[in-house]
């Protein structure tokens, strides 16, 4: 099947099988390897990408379902080399260890801060509870989201 969609602002057209998963299209065909495959069954959030601005699990999404829509992956978050506030805060707060879970967390962080400018700690946990990290103990990830929120607010002032 032929599908056309936008990835990180760029239009792409390709042939996909009806059962082909979005994550395989992103990683293998488009070489956007920032998105990680960890469990394949919707338990870890590492494969999260934005579809028309909403987070989805690319390991459970069929490629055909993104036809005509817009996908944003971790590679589309920064503006060139300029980090987004969320990315910057993750670096500064020591929220990154092995890094395998990080693209998923950053995508969720971007989404959360777009819908809630200043989330409470409880809201942060509520939105990120579907993302697993085995390295950091989540402490600095929470700090990073809070910091990113501050950075964003100070920039819009």
């Amino acid at each position: 099947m032929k599908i056309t969609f936008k990835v990180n602002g760029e239009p792409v057209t390709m042939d996909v099988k009806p059962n082909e998963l979005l994550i395989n299209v992103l990683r293998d065909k488009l070489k956007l390897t920032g998105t990680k495959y960890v469990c394949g069954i919707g338990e870890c959030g590492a494969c999260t990408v934005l579809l028309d601005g909403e987070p989805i699990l690319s390991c459970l999404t069929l490629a055909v379902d993104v036809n005509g829509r817009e996908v944003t992956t971790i590679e589309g978050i920064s503006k060139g080399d300029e980090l987004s506030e969320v990315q910057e805060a993750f670096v500064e707060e020591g929220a990154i260890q092995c890094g395998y879970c990080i693209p998923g967390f950053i995508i969720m962080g971007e989404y959360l801060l777009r819908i809630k400018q200043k989330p409470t700690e409880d809201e942060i946990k509520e939105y990120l509870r579907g993302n697993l990290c085995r390295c950091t103990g989540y402490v600095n990830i929470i700090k990073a989201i809070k910091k990113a929120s501050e950075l964003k607010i100070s920039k819009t002032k």
Partner: protein
Amino acid sequence: MCGLREALPEDVTSLITLTLSFSGFEVFKLKDLLIYSCLSLLWLSTMSDTSVGPEHLISKWLEAKEFLVVGKSVSRIDALSKALGTAKYTEDYLMSEALFIKQVLSPEPHAIIKSVDVSGALRIPGVARVFTASDIPGINQVGYALPDQPLLAERKVRYVGEVVALVAASDYEKALRAAEEVRVGYEPLPHILDPLEAMERSDVLIHEEAGSNIAFRTKVRKGDVVEGFSKSDVIVENEYRTHHQDHIYLETEAALAIPDMEGRVTIIGGIQYPHLARDITAKVLGIPSSFVKVVVPYVGGGFGGKDDEGPLAAAKAGLVAYLTKKPAFILYSREESIIIHPKREAAIIRYKSGASGDGKLQAIEVTIIHDTGAYANRSPFILWRATMHSSGPYEVPNARVDGYAVYTNKVYEGSFRAFGNASIQFAVERQMDQLADKLGMDPIEFRLKNILEPGKYTVTGQLLDHSVGVGDAVRKLAEVSEWRRKYEEYKKFNKASDRFKRGIGIGVAWHGISTSRGVPDWSNSYVKIEKDGSVTVFTGITEIGQGSPTSSHIQIVCELLGVSPNHVKVVFGGTDAPDAGATHASRGTSIGGIGVLVAAAKLRERLVSLAASMLNVSPEDVVLRDEKAQVKNDPTRYVSWKDLVKEAMSRGVELSATGYFFLPKGKFDDTVGQGFAYPAYSYIAIVSEVEVDTWTGQVRVLKVWPALAAGRIINPQQVEGQVEGAVVQGMGYVLMEQLIFDEKGRILNPDLTDYVIPTIRDIPEIAKPVYVEDVFKYGPFGAKGVGEMALIPMPATLSNAVANALGVNVTRLPLTPENILKLLGKVRG
């Protein structure tokens, strides 16, 4: 490979400002050639760094009082590419022409392999070949401590999940289908899952050649335990049980092998010790080690698991690539990862300890039994570590300890953060609480009466001469956590509360630095200064999330050479770097960093000496900082780093150095388990507060207070990250993680739905760690290991807190709601 991906930001040369304004320097450069040469020779003759031993260089930096970057929370350099999503892990190097490898696993726990029929698999189009033990050109032996383990099963299988064959096909689907078509004929043998039964039986032997199911024994004999117990006014005796834990690194095991790159078999893989993976692969292929190259890119978590399984994944991919002459790729599915790879030890510990009325420990008598599973792997080391730590960080005059690593037909035991020590410290610390209770003493007060200090002897009779900050750590922790107040307050709270009970507990632990069993340990690194002044560091230490090559190694170089972190490239994790030992045992910074320090210190001596001659001051008066060599009390007089490097090149000063250091160790007598066990110990104490819902059995951890005596803290942010991560991984182990085995020893929950790890919703508040910087004489700036530390006392501290909350004896893990209700007598156990 990946190490090379993060080039210096932009063009280095544009970032270094040339400083030629120092007039003395200009004048010096104008001297005529003859004088110049003579001066050079004279100056060179005063160079003495060949006579400066590494110990001297290490101790010089141990005494430093002020630092440029050491002790500061510098961001790790790999965070940037990891945040951008450009950091490359093994799977990201996958090439479309690579063959996919799928593993054929044994469904039998113990059986003779009668036949392997691969014809059906080979009929599937796209299947290149099927490999079994008989295809291995070299030696089919990958046992780590004992020669008991094949890479591919030979003659018989010993656990459900053992790898019998490898299928290689042009794509994943075909490999998967073909693996299902491989027909293996098994003749089942009686199997044993219980280590106690395995110890007793000789009619069923898991390894016939061993003559028994006991793979390895350890012992400690110190003093006279009979006398010790006769002097004891209180005695406590219990049997403890701990369970397996899976690492659940987010990235499963993976390796990509390229058959002929640079005339070598090159393997990119998620590995913790590239040189070990290389040696194992070479042995399996029957070729010299120097004809195998291993590159370890970023690794999505290791925790010990990829120290064991990483080299095996590498060898499997290497085998297929070598025999097919095509690139070959193996990626374990989550299910395969959980079923195949080794686990944290499941232990049975019988512990008897006694103390006199004055609160002094008099004797311990301990039996440690590890359910080693199908293969010994590292269990001799894990058991040895458990045995030599069996007293906890306390002085005990009389000890009798026996350890047994026992074969069973289950997934085998392996390395996991804490390495045998979390289970034994759990037993020790439960005993300590109960002894204190019988003595009517406060648990912390009782511990402090027995705590190790400089000048005291360990359970192996080793004199601790320095770096023992555990007493101070416990005292400070008692203060900041307000231990005493809460201890009393929770008693009142629990009287008034029917459903919810609160408790506070402490776990204190120690962990020997460096390898166990007296195995030689060393550090090695190669550092070179490039023409433009940038610095390249080569190390075999890998980046598995801990960040040593991407933070502390860089800090060490910046501290010694005064260069900016942007100009330091650490090429890590490859066999083309010197063998720095494994990235395990919390040794990435504490041991791996020594080589970097020694090499950088050698270069520094040479350049400081040159700068002194250029600036006309003595070397003691030269400071390297801000990319300059400047005069100590007159920063206006300086040579820029870049010019200093240029000058060094023109004068024949060697700008590269290896930093090799062999860690001194003492004698150990295995027949009595006495002698030198480790060069030093890291210490940790954790106080935790819990609330238990006695209706549901749910344990909630409210707050955790860590105190660390791990020598110099080179990067507080990284250390905190390690502590927090280990606390949560340890909490997961104690409260929720559990592998379920069926009657064949098959793991029934090999996925992230049924094997549950902590989410962001489960975490407690974690206080900033208290640090006691009890410097270690051989560590870089006195650093000891940190990575494993906070996991070690988690079973101890949480079970003590739960016991305190409920007024019950906790002897078994995990503390799942079901098991808590059993403890409360609400469901039958």
